[in-house]
């Protein structure tokens, strides 16, 4: 099987689906001739032409709003927001329009659209090129939210997202783009939205996480295994719909849960996961439901020492797991 990078999996999924389905098209800033500032749409304009790989004006609300109109008409737009931080001007179109189109029309209109956005930090992006913005949207019914951690998951989940009949926010961790390579089938395959994945089986402590933190947690787990602590790692993969069964099962497995995310703690998505566990798996718990997250500051600074202080890493995660294991 070919071994490809996380970002190549993005490109491959889009390209395959554009080849298969004429209603799919891409729009965003610099996605055409330049192939995206991260190069996620590299080469697509040559394959599919500039009408289907559209360089838009610098206007996020328009990128999403035009996408909504095209989706309602019957196409399947894939909108790129250049950095997740710049999704903010499009929040009205996403929350008031895309998320509510089906509900408000009593099911007569729909909005089958993917909004891709590179998020996350650790790449010297400073305050506005590093944010995790998923929590802004997890409380908005009508949206689906996907946060893959591996190239294999990227391809399968992106194909599902494009084929989904609801608006999907597809958040790609930009530090993973070229960090992680994986065996990825060149044929098409889909991974259903709403299915979490056990990335490591273990018996002592359960870690529930997603995105870059999956890898940091697996690193931590490897180290802890040497200390005799056996870590169970659940990768949520899609936040909405949440795989509640998988969360509860992973909780029952060890009775001790640590939720890890790069987003800041207060009202991060970990709160919802913790709340579900506290409500529905309370009697299976042997210890408090813990969260390890970034600090509650408005995003990570540019200075590398400050950035490092902000970011979680395998050591910090290992320490938190250790603490829980010892309880």
């Amino acid at each position: 099987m070919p071994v490809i990078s996380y970002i190549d999996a993005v490109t491959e999924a889009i390209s395959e689906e554009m080849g298969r389905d004429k209603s799919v098209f891409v729009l965003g800033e610099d996605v055409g001739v330049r192939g995206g500032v991260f190069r996620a749409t590299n080469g697509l304009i040559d394959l599919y032409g500039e009408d289907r790989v559209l360089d838009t004006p610098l206007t996020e609300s328009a990128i999403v709003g035009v996408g909504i109109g095209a989706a309602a008409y019957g196409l399947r737009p894939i909108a790129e927001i250049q950095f997740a931080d710049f999704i903010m001007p499009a929040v009205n179109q996403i929350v008031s329009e895309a998320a509510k189109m089906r509900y408000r029309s009593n099911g007569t209109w729909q909005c089958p659209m993917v909004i891709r956005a590179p998020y996350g930090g650790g790449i010297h992006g400073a305050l506005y090129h590093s944010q995790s913005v998923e929590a802004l949207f997890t409380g908005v019914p009508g949206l689906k939210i996907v946060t893959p951690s591996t190239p294999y998951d990227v391809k399968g989940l992106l194909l599902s997202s494009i084929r989904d009949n609801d608006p999907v926010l597809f958040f790609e961790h930009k530090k993973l783009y070229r960090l992680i390579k994986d065996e990825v089938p060149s044929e098409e395959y889909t991974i259903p939205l709403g299915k979490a994945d056990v990335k490591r089986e273990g018996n002592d402590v359960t870690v529930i996480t997603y995105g870059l933190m999956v890898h940091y947690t697996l690193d931590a787990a490897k180290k802890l295994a040497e200390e005799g602590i056996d870590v169970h790692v659940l990768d949520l993969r899609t936040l909405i719909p949440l795989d509640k069964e998988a969360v509860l099962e992973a909780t029952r497995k060890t009775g001790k849960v640590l939720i890890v995310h790069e987003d800041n703690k207060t009202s991060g998505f970990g709160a919802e996961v913790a709340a579900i566990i506290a409500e529905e798996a309370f009697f299976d718990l042997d210890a408090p439901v813990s969260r390890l997250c970034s600090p509650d500051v408005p995003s990570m600074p540019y200075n590398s020492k400050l950035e490092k202080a902000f970011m979680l890493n395998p050591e910090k995660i290992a320490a938190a797991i250790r603490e829980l294991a010892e309880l």
Partner: protein
Amino acid sequence: MKHLELGLTDEQVREMYRYMLLARKVDEKMWLLNRAGKLPFVVSCQGQEATQIGAAYALDRQKDWLCPYYRDLGMVLLFGQTARDQMLSAFAKKDDPNSGGRQMPNHFGDRRYRILSGSSPVTTQMLHAVGIAYAGKVTGEDHVVLTSCGEGSSNQGDWHEALNFAGVHDLPVVFLVENNMYAISVPLSKQLAGENVAARGQGYGMPGIRVDGNDVFQVYEVMKQAVERARKGEGPTLIEAVSYRLTPHSSDDDDLTYRTKEEIEEAKKRDGLFVLETYLDEHQLWTADEKEALSKAIDTEITEAIKFAEAADHPNPEDLSKHVYAG
């Protein structure tokens, strides 16, 4: 005669009037029902019917699209909705074609007639219209999209992004701004620098045309040219139709706190419905009997619509959670 110069038959002028009158009478009746405590909320088209019918009449009702705003009762009636549809919506009944009773009245949306579902936050629909127009370009359809909003709404960011996007890609959209002199209580002078929406067209590389919105023929004429340009791929047009809001902003408003009775009375003299009625009279385009019969037929239609809607089923509370997502 003006209408013959425009290529309109006598019959067509009577049809225009019929829809204007239907809109007016449906609207008036809703106020009565509101004051009688039967409807919680009304928002009106009164004073803007000439604009709405003049504009929509220039479209191809078999293939063109509407992204209207909450005052565009005239447009949606002309496109196919009925008095009964309006009453089902006003009473929020299950068979309301717009939303199954989920949205406020005048939040139009009807797949049968290619009227895209709209929301309350103003101006979002301009971008959807651009998206539908773009979809036509990609799929090779030659539909034209008419989208409209109030002059106050023309100051929203989305308005700017929509006109620019359509301008860059020469898309078949007509942007109609229904200038009724007020945004709720805020008069034109405090809303709009320059107090002239049409002047903005130039900044988007498109014609910006200001017409008397009380003159159905003037509106029809510029709209017809705009539709022809659009259909030929020559790009979008901005039309500002100036009239006056004859009612309070909505049934929750008390407009005498910010404008005078005299001003309203003065405006009523230029009421587009009255102007067209006078035209029909003066050019003897109908007999007194025909005129009378038309009015009566409409009254009957509305009375029956109310009876039907009052007796119609409410939506089932168990369906509250339907249509959040597909399937």
